[in-house]
């Protein structure tokens, strides 16, 4: 967590009323500091065993999470479960297309999630716009706005494909390649600029953690 008394960065919550700026932190995110190799490997193993999904159905993809959460596909046995708030979650499933209005919430939710955090993007819409490629209200590439660890092809991807995606994510985490969070910190200004380019009424904090 960043230090509240550090010098404000270049993006100091300008979108907020003056009175509210103090409610949020004012420094950009920092990269994760790795522990020694053995400890880190153990942690990665542990992280991979408990993927807690933020229960935020951002698009049509949410509909296939329902079967996954229930008895037929039962994702709990894989250590995957939904959580109601970003603070408790480590995996963000972007369920397809994201309208600008939702993107705003996606950004905030992503930033509020505790690290290490990972993003799984579903379907065509997150890769290159999908069937809403010419819509005025949906973005085409989610990776312009938040880093993505795994993509799952499909429209919609079936629950089985989602499970395959989570297994892949686990492999990535175990191998220590789940770098999304660090990437976000590294290219923070680039991400912010992209976000602000499409979210025209930027009225939220730049630093959400």
């Amino acid at each position, binding site marked *: 967590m960043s230090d509240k008394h550090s010098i404000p960065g270049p993006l100091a919550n300008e979108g907020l009323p003056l009175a509210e700026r103090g409610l949020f932190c004012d420094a950009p995110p920092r990269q994760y500091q790795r522990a020694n190799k053995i400890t880190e490997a153990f942690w990665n193993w542990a992280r991979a065993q408990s993927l807690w999904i*933020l*229960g*935020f*159905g*951002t*698009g*049509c993809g*949410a*509909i*296939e999470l*329902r*079967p996954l*959460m*229930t*008895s*037929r596909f039962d994702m709990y046995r894989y250590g995957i479960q*939904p959580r*109601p*708030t*970003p603070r408790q979650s480590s995996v963000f499933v972007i369920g397809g*297309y994201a*309208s600008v*209005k*939702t993107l705003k*919430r996606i950004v905030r*939710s992503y930033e509020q999630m505790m690290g290490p955090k990972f993003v799984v993007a579903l379907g065509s819409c997150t890769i290159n716009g999908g*069937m*809403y490629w*010419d*819509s*005025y*209200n*949906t973005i085409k590439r989610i990776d312009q706005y938040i880093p993505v660890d795994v993509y799952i092809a499909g*429209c*919609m991807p*079936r629950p089985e494909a989602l499970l395959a995606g989570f297994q892949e994510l686990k492999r990535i985490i175990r191998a220590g390649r789940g770098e999304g969070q660090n990437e976000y910190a590294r290219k923070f200004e680039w991400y912010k600029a992209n976000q602000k380019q499409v979210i025209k009424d930027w009225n939220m904090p730049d630093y959400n953690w």
Partner: protein
Amino acid sequence: MSRAKAPYIAPAERAAPDLDSGKYLVMWQGPNHPGITGNMSLRLVIEGDSVVDCETHVGYLHRGFEKLMERRLWMQNFPLVCRIAVPEPDFNEYCYAAALEELAGIEVPDKAVWLRTLSLEMIRLASFLMWIGGQAGAFGHGTIAQWSVTMRDYVLDLFEELTGGRIYHMYIIPGGVRGDVPAGFLRRVLETMDTVRKNLDDIELVMFHNVVYKMRAQGLGYIPPDWVDQYGITGPNARAAGLPRDLRKDLGYLAYPRLSFEPIVGTVSDAFERSRLRLLEMYQSIDLIRQIVDMLPARGAFRAKLPNPLHWKIPAGETYVAAECTRGEYGFYVVSDGGDKPRRVAVRGPSYTHGVALMERLARGVNIADVAGLMVSLHTYPPEIER
């Protein structure tokens, strides 16, 4: 009677509470909230633990369908429309196809009429099954969803077999349907119906004879009968208030006039009555599916010949085609200016009235713990509100 929890209040213009008074707290529910169906949010003003005022905020799922449809060829809209209401794509497909057929003067083969009816009735069942899990879950009863979502999945398996898709079936294409039933399919439909029915019996027992559910749902979100027209309420929400309005009967579209069923009507439209009525409609759907399987013609064309989809022009005209989906009146208003693309397509989703205007009204006076249950009891799907 315990249902007096929500006394009758005439719909009126809302008086905004004075937020500066210090009596109230503004609380957002959604879009990221487990009790919200789909992706929408409610701005609640609460006093203590009861809601004083509710404002709905929609548009998180707005993709601009109606604009996009004006940019696409008539046939190209066929894959697009089903995305408007994710849990019930087939109604979009049917309404769109039927509107085009009406405007272009195309006769749909009888076999396709039956297959469309089958498809619509199956998705009604699947959609209700998904809803009932949510309804029980909203009152803290998680078990039901474990059963019902699986039952829905069994129905989706049937769809997958018939149409090649689980969620987006893209089966009802203008002119007919895209394929005949596979060998042995009808037998599997009947088997699945038996399984679902058996589970519905269990659900009825543990949900509708459950003291917790009864106490929380009864009296919640009471809709007086005279609101039905005032708010444009349709479907089970209206039928629960005692009005026998069912477009399957009233419009007599597809093969419904040839099936035997009666609209299911309730007495007092509150959350409990509405959910009980939907349970009965699930039984009704199973019955209708069995009838359809019995009467489905074995032979015959399943699609009429259409012009080349790449330059299909539809004569100028307008039509409004509606069908009875699980939530009520689902309709497509299609206007053609004689060109190869629609001039205007407007989609009328029942959630639009139930989920926004009615929800804002009904939420007043409700305990915040019941807001989710109330919303689910209106059975709304946000994607069809904002399109």
